[in-house]
């Protein structure tokens, strides 16, 4: 069933560059993810003030959304499913530091100590009242992730899915997002091919 998932738009970001639909559109020259995302927000004129309060996972997803969202027709509600290995680790460590150092936690940090909040953020921005879920897998199990996506697309009769791997590790980000379409007729990159290459597996 995962063979019938085709990529119709993609966004990749790591320490070197940003790729949109497989083409490098931006070179990265900043030292950390936080700076990089802030500068990209300005460069691409995202104009979404909520961005600044978000954690890095959410910022990365909102940035990717800017590029790939238009592949989904306006009246369509896509399945939204993302995955990574370490869940909300970056925010978790900030939260732990916060309540240890300052005797109380910060609500603005705590709300992001769940990996699925980035899904909430993109659903809010796009008004997608979607079936959604955040899953955890080691990168090498990406096929199982795609299998779960395929099952949920069938179950919900979703023609489109907003999917991907979004990971933040020690201030570095690694993002591979794509819009998938079920049963798209013509030749094109399959979800399997895209993620195998993007995740270097």
């Amino acid at each position, binding site marked *: 069933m995962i063979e019938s998932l085709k990529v119709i738009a993609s966004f990749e970001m790591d320490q070197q560059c940003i790729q949109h639909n497989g083409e490098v559109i931006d070179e990265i020259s900043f030292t950390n993810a936080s700076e990089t995302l802030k500068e990209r927000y300005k460069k691409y004129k995202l104009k979404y003030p909520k961005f600044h309060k978000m954690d890095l996972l959410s910022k990365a997803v909102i940035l990717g959304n800017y590029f790939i969202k238009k592949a989904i027709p306006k009246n369509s509600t896509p399945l939204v499913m993302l995955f990574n290995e370490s869940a909300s680790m970056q925010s978790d460590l900030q939260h732990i530091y916060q309540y240890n150092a300052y005797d109380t936690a910060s609500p603005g940090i*705590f709300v992001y100590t769940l990996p699925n909040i980035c899904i909430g953020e993109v659903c809010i921005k796009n008004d997608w009242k979607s079936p959604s879920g955040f899953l955890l*897998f080691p990168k090498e199990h990406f096929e199982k992730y795609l299998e779960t996506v395929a099952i949920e697309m069938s179950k919900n009769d979703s023609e489109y899915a907003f999917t991907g791997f979004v990971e933040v590790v020690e201030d570095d980000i690694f993002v591979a997002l794509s819009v998938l379409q079920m049963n798209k007729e013509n030749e094109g990159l399959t979800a399997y091919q895209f993620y195998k290459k993007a995740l270097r597996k």
Partner: protein
Amino acid sequence: MIKIGAFEIITPLGASLDENWEAIESGKTSLQKVKYNDKAAAYISRFESADFRKLIAMCFEQMLEKIEVDALGKTQVIFSSTKGAVGNWNHYHKHRVYEIQEVLDLNPEWDQAPITVSNACISGLQAVEFAYDGIQFEHWDSAIVVAFDEVSEFIVEGFASLHALSKGVCQPFSKDRDGINIGSAIACAVVSKNPVFKGEQYRIVGASNCNDANHISGPSRTGEGLYRAISNVLKKSAKPDFISLHGTGTPYNDEMEAVALDRLGLTNIPVHSLKPVFGHTLGAAGLLELAICGRMLTEQKAVPSLNYKKQGTSVKLNVQSDFGNLKMNRILKTTSGFGGNNAALLIQRT
């Protein structure tokens, strides 16, 4: 027919579903007042000096005894947790939620890539939804679901900063409700189309989840996501005879659920929240509470909603006040969570 069964749970109230059910019959709660830092206390449900991972392994083994393992067929393992079984918090940065598989005796013939759902408080129920969907779309014959979360300073400090902790035992749907309690729990179950169950088993009629697309930590005022999730489930079913709600005891959550039920015309149906019994067990909640719903169907007894005093929602709900006989064929379980999630699942007596 796709069924769920072999429910097993371990909570501070008891080391098995049977023990927990007995405690519920006696009206007990696992919540106790605990000091969590120098200045503050909260009612929390936690295991006293127990190795959480060992308890998960124990629950898993007890669950396996309730099925014919040889009859499972193609089997998928699905975990559900928001924070995982962390073990040593000093090594938290190396921790991966799915490493729990290392302490479980997973059959090598089962699929080698477990699915881990980490979708806030709907995770436990959503794990069952994925198990069911995978069988329906013929990806596997059976799925083993293991849901777990434990109280930690991390979680308590976090909810305290949101002013979301109750000063006492939570009071879902009540006028004076003031917040949540956190609890630890482990729940396991098997979902299957094969004749694997030695004992209790219930038909899964439908399951659905929907995002509010409204706010990351507050529910939609119109209960849109929950309304849609329940509507989807009820497309395939007659109305439920009982609804086990999420009922965390916060002003917003409980009101949202009442609004959603009102929109659906379901406010006459008896409801409860199990949060005053177990606390909010996060990634375990959906499956833990579904296990109790299963036992309710078997025993034909309704579990009450503890601590309900005066109507506190804009629409009146039929809040179950006593533990007593109730004829039930179908129970609807709902959960909602941070990130705008809402899930609903309906089980039926077989």
